[in-house]
């Protein structure tokens, strides 16, 4: 049996104190190492909230998240930051590259935050850039790239610390069809080559169809958990 990477136990999120908005009801699931999964749902359904909770960017109002064996619910801000840096890579709809730094420096950033030596980091960053077809762009400023290139740099950065899990929130939301297809092809290749688990949030069912497992969120509840095209209705 594969190692459990994410253990989400009845996690819920409610925003507001006076007027309360429930973004996510008590959701439970597990993601195994090397899985390639997607979270699908309409806009405002709670899928991004779920991703932010798994990625320890946000804290659940209820429930418990165990990430790679570490109980993140009990962790403080510093420990959560360390867990994010060690185990999670993020790819967002907006690339969020740092305009003050070059392509190579952006890719190196998670490793530098971890405090690793440049002699270890630079070859790995160059390897990532080569994997994503970005050779020759190392010294360019992140702002001087096309939309597709920026998103590939963001993916290279997400892979920098060789995370066990990459969380991608609408990663192709700002890309054209050709670039979108290329990005998902890359995700799949990385998943197979490096054994990195992926959870991709999308509202596009055709994108979700390319993943091994589909978690469908509706009105903050997990309504379907489908593996290998076989739907498994919950409840």
């Amino acid at each position, binding site marked *: 049996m594969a190692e459990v990477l994410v253990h989400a136990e009845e996690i819920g999120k409610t925003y507001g104190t006076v007027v309360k908005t429930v973004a996510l009801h008590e959701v439970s699931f597990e993601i195994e190492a090397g899985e390639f999964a997607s979270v699908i749902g309409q806009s405002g359904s709670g899928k*991004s909230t779920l991703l*932010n909770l798994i*990625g320890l*960017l*946000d804290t659940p109002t209820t429930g418990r998240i165990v990430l790679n064996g570490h109980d993140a619910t009990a962790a403080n*801000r*510093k420990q959560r*930051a*360390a*867990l*994010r*840096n*060690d185990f999670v890579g*993020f790819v*967002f*709809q*907006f690339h*969020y590259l*740092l*305009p*003050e*730094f070059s392509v190579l420096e952006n890719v190196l*950033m*998670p490793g*530098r*935050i*971890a*405090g690793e030596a440049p002699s270890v980091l630079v070859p790995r960053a160059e390897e990532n850039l080569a994997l994503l077809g970005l050779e020759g762009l190392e010294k360019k400023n992140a702002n001087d790239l096309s939309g597709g290139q920026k998103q590939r740099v963001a993916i290279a*950065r997400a892979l920098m610390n060789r995370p066990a899990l990459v969380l991608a929130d609408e990663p192709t939301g700002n890309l054209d069809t050709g670039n979108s297809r290329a990005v998902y092809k890359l995700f799949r290749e990385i998943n197979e080559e490096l054994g990195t688990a992926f959870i991709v949030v999308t509202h596009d069912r055709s994108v979700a169809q390319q993943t091994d497992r589909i978690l469908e969120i509706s009105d903050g509840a997990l309504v379907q958990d489908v593996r290998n095209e076989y739907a498994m209705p919950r409840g």
Partner: protein
Amino acid sequence: MLSLRIAVRFLRKSPWQSILIAAGIAVGIGVQVFLGSLITSLQASLVDQTIGNSPQLIVQAQQDGQPVSFTPQLEHAMKAQSEITTVVPTRTYSGIFRSGAKNAPLQFTGGALDKLDTIYDISGRLVAGKASLAAGEVIVGKDFADTYGLKPGAAATFVLPSGKPATLTVSGVFDFGSAAANSATAFVNGDQAATVLGLQGDQYTAVDAQVKDVFSSKQVASALRTEPALNGLKVTEWQAQNSDLLSALKSQSSSSYMIQFFVLVAVALGIASTLAISAVQKTRQIGILKAMGMKDRQSGRIFLWQALILGVSGAAVGVAAGLGLIALFTFLGRNSTSLFPITPQVGFVVISFVVGVLVAVGSSLIPSRRTKKLDPIEVIQGG
């Protein structure tokens, strides 16, 4: 030092903003260095002009008109005070200059010229004639000489305290830079003064002294009063005689400190507000760095580093600008008698530099705190 690297990149990304903050610090510290040095030098100049060439401590007999015996014990007791730089026994009397129908009172100070020079610097301030106080010679002030047309070699007749006239030859003319001193002071031979006053060889009207630090005169006077060799003698010092000057100097210092304080407050507010704006501008970058695992303290240090870099560079430029202004002031006033030389104090300049850096770093505490508290989700959710 990732925080430092990021801080440098943030500063370089907005060069004009960085230059403006550093310029603000530079102006503040430049004003601080120039104004502080100006006031210190002005006060030193005022003190020097007022009491620099006059006795700062005077030992006299308790009763007016009685002589002081300048014994080796008295001399030793006074010279034993480490603050005292020179001890000069003098014989002083009043006389009246007569020129036709005109009368002018004069204060004659008698003593050895080389000794008198250690306080009054007569030789150094001579504008005509020669520095000589042989018997029968007198050195007079410039204003007095000009008023009565006395040139070196001229004979002048004075009425002595005894009422007898005495004719002396003007050997030189001095300029003390003060009309009052130049028109009412004269120097004569010490033995001649003894004859006029009817004093013995070791008897003087006063023993004058100067001290290294003029503001130590109070302590030195107190110490002298306890000396057995000064029994029956009174010690007066310049501060007790010049309370108005002291009060003016203190007021000047207070106003200078106030100006410097408010300049620094203005600089601090300027840096704080600009860094706060910078922190807001960089919210997205900080948020994404935190999402990648940057810890709160590490992110907070970015703005501390920025402030330190801006503070050090701004304060360095400010110190250079302040010293440049001082050099300009000194250059422009090199031929002017109304301007005084400004001497920058190394200690004060170093303190100003450190204060500049500390003000800058202190101003970064709010943006730094804000950055530390930033939650990455605020940026991620905001898009």
